[in-house]
């Protein structure tokens, strides 16, 4: 069996005997005595535990990425370089992000500050933070209860893209990738990270009960919140095949283990409706770990990617030792948190087809708080309007309205063949009540969900009058952008 092996603040660390579900945060504070990194929530919702991880960027290079260490299990950093807030100061000199934060009075109580500093570190090594809203997106994963954020925003604006010649720049330039592959056990727990599909099938033959994990942003909550100790996890993170992200047949192939930050960048020009959903999918730290496949395989009724991918007509591509099978994504979700995957199968790709001409497409996410929140209602809409101005096809997919992400079939039927007008939209809205009986919970009442479901369709019509797939404005008031 292998040992855990990674670099912590540039020093090689090798460990054995530690639980494979020990989080990096707990390891830092309790084993490495690096207490700068704080626990604020242990669920990726506050950012106080943010560290920087230097790892392969999926394009053959290395990237320095801000990540919540509270959701990061130790085997997930195998072969990678982990940096904590203690690594910022070099030779007794404070790093530019530290000086800037202090100068702007970006800390008051200071408990969120190490995490803020590490998110700023990623910001100062990013090259693409060229607009104010991107700074908000970079920093929204760090809750601060004291400052009201103005000084943190100002600090981010000052350091973004600076590209200092620091130890991180040197590491980015010099680091050679090391294998993530791992077969680890400690006590009754095991963790496998196979590097090839063949190796994966072998693990699955031996352990058909294995659970899959990639980013861990959902699964790790079982460890940090319910104190579970999953006996056997298989990480798909090292399987290069599943990292595909490319145009294909006029559409796109999206690998299941593509990080959401990668997909967000890719879709900005390639597939605007996807980008519109991913912007508020979660915080930067979460999107740096969360994957497309992970979001779909939890089969949560409020998983944000499902409605938009269903609207786009995506197909799920499922692999097993026996080969490949495909299905429309809406058929992938069979019930509350249940997918169509059988034992020995993995979700490998999403194939998004070429979009028909005359298509109008938008994705919406409505939540109590715009950033870093879970949907009350989400939606992906595509309506294809023919040359005569009539609706040729309607795909209206909703999240948060039923036990699984689902299409509003009755409403769709009511639209097809009708002229694409405000009156037609108003005429079918009542059908949404036949399609869905939403529930009341702490994210919203049944009344709110039903009302918003209708209003999103109203807004969709208004928004697509001038543009078939409008992008989000920089900073905006609401999910739906209509005057």
């Amino acid at each position, binding site marked *: 069996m292998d040992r855990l092996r990674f670099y912590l603040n540039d020093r090689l660390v090798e460990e054995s005997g530690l639980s494979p579900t020990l989080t990096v945060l707990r390891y830092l504070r309790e084993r490495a005595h690096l207490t700068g990194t704080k626990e604020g929530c242990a669920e990726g919702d506050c950012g106080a535990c943010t560290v920087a991880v230097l790892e392969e960027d999926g394009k053959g290079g290395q990237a320095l990425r801000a990540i919540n260490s509270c959701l990061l299990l130790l085997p997930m950093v195998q072969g990678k370089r982990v940096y904590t807030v203690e690594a910022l100061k070099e030779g007794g000199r404070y790093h530019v992000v530290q000086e800037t934060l202090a100068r702007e009075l970006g800390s008051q109580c200071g408990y969120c500050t190490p995490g803020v500093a590490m998110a700023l570190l990623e910001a100062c090594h990013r090259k693409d933070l060229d607009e104010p809203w991107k700074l908000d997106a970079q920093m929204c994963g760090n809750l601060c209860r004291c400052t009201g954020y103005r000084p943190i925003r100002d600090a981010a604006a000052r350091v973004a893209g600076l590209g200092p010649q620091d130890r991180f720049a040197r590491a980015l330039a010099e680091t050679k990738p090391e294998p993530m592959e791992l077969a680890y056990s400690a006590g009754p727990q095991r963790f496998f990270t196979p590097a090839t599909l063949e190796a994966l099938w072998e693990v699955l033959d031996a352990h058909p009960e294995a659970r899959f994990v990639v980013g861990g942003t959902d699964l790790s909550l079982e460890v940090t919140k319910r104190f579970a100790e999953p006996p056997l996890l298989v990480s798909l993170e090292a399987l290069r095949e599943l990292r595909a992200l490319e145009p294909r047949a006029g559409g796109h192939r999206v690998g299941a283990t593509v990080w959401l930050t990668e997909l967000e960048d890719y879709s900005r020009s390639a597939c605007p409706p996807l980008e519109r959903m991913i912007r508020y999918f979660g915080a930067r730290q979460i999107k740096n770990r969360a994957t497309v496949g992970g979001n779909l395989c939890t089969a949560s009724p409020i998983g944000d990617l499902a409605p938009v991918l269903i609207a786009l007509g995506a197909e799920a591509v499922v692999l097993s030792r026996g080969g490949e099978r495909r299905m429309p994504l809406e058929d992938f979700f069979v019930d509350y948190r249940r997918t169509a995957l059988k034992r020995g199968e993995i979700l490998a790709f999403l194939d998004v087809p070429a979009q028909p001409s005359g298509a109008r497409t938008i994705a919406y996410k*409505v939540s109590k708080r715009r950033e870093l929140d879970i949907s009350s209602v989400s939606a992906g809409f595509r309506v294809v309007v023919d040359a005569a101005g009539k609706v040729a096809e309607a795909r209206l997919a909703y999240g948060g309205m039923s036990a699984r992400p689902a299409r509003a079939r009755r409403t769709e039927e009511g639209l097809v063949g009708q002229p694409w007008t405000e009156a037609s939209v108003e005429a079918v809205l009542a059908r949404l009540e036949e399609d869905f009986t939403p529930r009341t919970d702490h994210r919203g009442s049944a009344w709110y969900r039903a009302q918003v479901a209708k209003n999103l369709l109203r807004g969709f019509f208004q928004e697509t009058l001038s543009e078939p797939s409008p992008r989000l404005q920089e900073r905006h*008031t609401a999910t739906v952008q209509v005057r």
Partner: protein
Amino acid sequence: MVAIPSEIPSQPEARSPLHAPGLHESGLKHTSGEALYVDDLPAPPGLLVGHVIASPHAHARLVRRDARRALSLPGVHAVLFAQDIPGANDVSPVRGVHDEPLLATDEVHCIGQAVAFVVAESAALCRQAAALVELEYEVLPACLTIGEAIEKSLFIPHPFYPNPHVIRRGEPEAALIAAPVRIQGECMTGAQDHFYLETQVSQAVLEEDGAVRLWSSTQHPSEVQEKVAEVLGLGRHQVTVEVPRMGGGFGGKETQAAPFAALAALAAYATRRPVKVWLNRDQDMEQTGKRHPFWARYDAGFSEDGRLLALKADLVSDGGWSNDLSHAILDRALFHMDNTYFLPHVEVRGRVARTNQPSNTAFRGFGGPQGMYVVEEVINRAAERLALDPAEVRRRNYYREAPENQTHYGQAVEGNRIPRIHAELMTSSEYARRRAEIDQFNASSQWTKRGIAYQPVKFGISFTTSFLNQAGAFVVIYADGTVQLNHGGTEMGQGLHTKMRTVCAHELGVPVEHVRVMTTATDKVPNTSATAASSGSDLNGMAVKAACEVLRERMRPVAAKLLQVEGEPERVVFSAGKAFVPGLAQRTLSFEEVTRAAYAAQVSLSATGYYRTPDIGYDRMTGRGKPFHYYAFGGAVVEVEVSGLTGEHRVRRVDILHDVGSSLVPTIDKGQVEGGFIQGVGWLTCEEVLIDAKGRLLTHSPDTYKIPALGDAPEDFRVALLERAPQEDTIHGSKAVGEPPLMLAIGAVTALRHAIGAFGPPRTEVQLASPATPEAILRAVETARAPKR
């Protein structure tokens, strides 16, 4: 000492750091992870971990407890129940009240109440052991809401005075009948979790003499000391409490740090080992109290031109299961029912409901925001009905010249800066022009509407329990001229240490870098009050000044002799690390030369300082008095945009002009204003505490409880401090700043109402619940749109 490259201009040598921009004393330590919090302290050998077993029922009788199976697990050192407490099983914060047992005896009164305390070698082992502790309950009927409590007449009596607390002036009943316009209704404000980023934590270590030393994240180390001493049956001289710093407090660590500290101390006594108790986020949110929800019924009379003629209001707060500070919080709510407005005829009454919820507690504003919200709702409704600009209605009701400067409790509003703030802010924010533009925008926009509002705030400064207004300091100068500063206040991020260091450096005439602020400790400065009520700088600053003055006067003769002006010590000036006689510039001494000479001349270089606020007091029986040393003032103009499709909104721009007197450190005060405002916006918009039918908290982590995130801060945020506004009888003319700005956020509600009203016909009276979540706003929009029946 670290030089920080800064855009903030460094001060010329000869000037003091006082009233000048400065950095946070711990800023760089925060950014590097070097700042130590209680949970970061190196573990003492043999450290054990404590874990609270909390009641799973809102109300139940505890019929059986058995820890034998848990105790048989290797590594489990103790499972403590009420009967294991050697002293008093009581952690009630108010003298003379004994309604809060540390560990439940035979009845539990809320979910989250501590029933037992497991002590083991790791948190995992604690959880394992806790599952093996057998506890049997007989479930009793529970009262979960204010409404239920009113129905069942369940109130927490005031320990010393009759209920309800009534403040009355004039003849409100007659004035209401005569009033041309009546506004009647009810409103609620919700709970708010403190959501300090650092959860509750304490560590206890035994010392010689049967003594115990604690490191606690608390705003009130003296009360932790007192409660630990009582629980263990010790003298307070055997208990030492240190506070390195807090990762946020906001009132949540004023009284509610003490139980966890007492449990740690109790466990250390029982096991003879060091013990730490640290709550994870879910435990913290489930086991501690929140901002008091308030229900109010009001009846107000206005003239046709919007003058408030009479107000009657009944307030009931949700105290939770025990007293805690609920009555003092209720008092402050009643004191702030006027906000900045003269109420000619008024009666306000208040009671505290007893519910089976965790005991609600102090939270920035301490009832003030809840009281103020009521009068602001009344004024908003009046303005909507009368089709007047709500800012103008507010202006017409401001306190005026005597006798119309008397509050309902009889204190004169002296130095009223509200008219000045109003005038300056209206101009600088271009309120009138923007309001006109917004009306135009709204006329042309179907689905999105904007709103703008002006919000004034007046907030009384002092603990309303008058004897608490005292503070101490202990300043130590070493022979090399460096200084250690101890004061009774605690640092929770608000910048108190930064301000105290500035005052100390100013008084002694040394650079701030030569002054080190020590961790707050009960063996350095005894018998302190909580760092609360915005009073930290006011009280401790005066005490620091007093101590420094003693030391300076002792050093003067020494310096005078060295400067060859012996016998004329008053001519010596201490400034910027030097001592000199103005006009005799050829000879200057370094501060170090003076301190070395003082030491050699056998002069004591340590001194204490003490301060108490003069001339305040309040008679609750008559509802009259002067509870406050002075008032702090502020104003905000808030602009919002609302979606009529989803109920989402965005704060587009905020202009604040706030009165902090002559700011001790303006950069620190600006941070308090900005942060307080956003925290208030959170309370009033996105932060929603929800329970289920059994009283279980549904929002016990940031997954479901949403404090403002970065994108919720206004993109255009302009904060200014009122200039040329020194305050009399305060530390260097400054004013308190911690709490008042939070209430400026009520302006966001008024702005939302403006936008929501624009979805309806003219004179729409908006029905907006608090907090104004997207759902609450969408409901209000739908109601505004619905044709009147």
